[in-house]
């Protein structure tokens, strides 16, 4: 048994988004923000969302220098690309699909399927989920910082 291949985890899309994260900035016009924390590895994300009516008009994120592994950074980057301009309900549905995928279900739509390989690396599922939990918290207008140690299904 040689186990899953590293190439399944670090797919080209993920390496690219890690090196060149999209929407990687502070969003001055944000009306929703959330903090995500993975205390085990020190990953931290600040998520900025501008919700206009029922639509995510703009979204961006920041991670303190060195505070994001490739999986968490690429996941945040791909997530912001995927939900920008989408209705809030569609973003929540994507969150569900993403979570289901990592729990062993079908692949999430579009580029998000790049994270299907994370399933074979249980210790990294929290990294992939972090940004999505932060988004969920922001959309719920929750002021509680998100931590990978509190969400049951992280």
């Amino acid at each position, binding site marked *: 048994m040689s*186990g899953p291949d590293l190439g399944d985890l670090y797919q080209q899309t993920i390496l690219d988004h890690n090196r060149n994260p999209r929407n990687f900035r502070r969003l001055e016009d944000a009306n929703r923000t959330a903090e995500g924390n993975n205390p085990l590895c*020190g990953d931290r994300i600040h998520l900025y969302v501008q919700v206009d009516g029922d639509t995510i008009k703009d979204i961006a994120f920041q991670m303190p220098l060195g*505070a994001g592994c490739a999986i968490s950074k690429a996941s945040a980057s791909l997530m912001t690309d995927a939900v920008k301009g989408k209705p809030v309900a569609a973003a929540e549905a994507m969150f569900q699909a993403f979570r289901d995928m990592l729990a062993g279900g079908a692949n999430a739509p579009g580029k998000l399927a790049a994270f299907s390989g994370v399933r074979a690396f249980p210790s990294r599922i929290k990294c992939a989920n972090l940004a999505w939990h932060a988004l969920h918290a922001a959309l719920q207008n929750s002021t509680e910082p998100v931590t990978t140690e509190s969400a049951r299904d992280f």
Partner: protein
Amino acid sequence: MLDTRKLRPEFPILERQENGKRLVYLDNAATSQKPRQVLEAIEHYYRCHNANVHRGAYGLAVEATDAYEAARTAVARFVNAWTREAVVFTRGTTESINLVAGSWGRANVQRGDTVVVTAMDHHSNIVPWQILCQEKGARLRMIEITADGRIDLADYGKALEAKPKLVAFPYVSNSLGTVNPAAQLSKLAHAAGAVTVVDGAQSTPHLRVDVQALDCDFYAFSGHKMLAPMGSGALVAKPALLEAMPPYHGGGEMIERVWDDRSTWNKIPHKFEGGTPNVEAAVGLGAAIAYLEHLGMERVAEHEQELARVAIERLSQIEGVTVYGPRDHRAGVVPFTYGDVHPHDLATILDRDGVCIRAGHHCTQPLMRRLGVAATARASFYVYNDVDDIEALVSAVRKAGELFGVLTS
């Protein structure tokens, strides 16, 4: 160097394969693997001698008590404790330090007092003091570290001017590998009127410890980092301090007489060992000590220092690798980062080659902030590691570089 070809077969777990590769276990600062001798001692205890200790009038209970107390004698000898009564069995370093904070600290630290810790302490030697200081309205003062990862002695001297009640520091840093001048630090603290608490979690497994030569007041360590089972460990303290301290946990065994409304306390160390103790852990710790004494702690220390030297040399040859901690006076702990590859990704990639390292903040967040990194990768060695393990580490790190196309600037 130790003969690892002879030692490795004594550690059954090292026979297992990890992702089709030989297991290269380099996370010994987190916990060590256990030799057959320790596993067999625990099994033998349960097969042949198990009973509750210190209370049975029958032969089996006497044997269990003898096994438990023999382990105490072994610990006392291993760290050169003042007396065998100076050894209180605990679940490990964390519980030992919490015992000091909860008993000595609560009885002696008052509003306005100062407690000193260092910026290289593990959270287990910071947080109990934070809790105590918050409860008492005392001040917690953190000593800075130098650029090369040592305790800043100038800042230490300044902190002592405030006449702190207690000074806590690690003998060996788990994040940097620094071996601190514990005897000197203790002497300076005593001159300022403080009692000293030494976190011995990373020193006891790796070098010869002599608490009387260190002249510290409290010395805490864990068994699981030194070949013994998890949940084993001890607080070693000057007997006069233990005598004067109030109990920590109330319950059976720690009492002398119990009245309706009050009790009197058992003698030390039993005063601090309420409830049925973890006898198997103590027995396993005794067996681990016998194993280490047979190897000789000077040789253990030399072996690991040599491995650390080779690892630092080999890792430093990779462009983009930064090794943290001092160049000399260091133990077998090698923390490093590699360009812009996050340590967590590095650990995942290394794991595919069977190489187990730790990635993260190593329970030293104040230190990480001072180093200006969110996380480091850490390789740490023990008696069964050899130069082949370092080669496996180095080649896996190079592989990570190829996968990620490391940016080194």
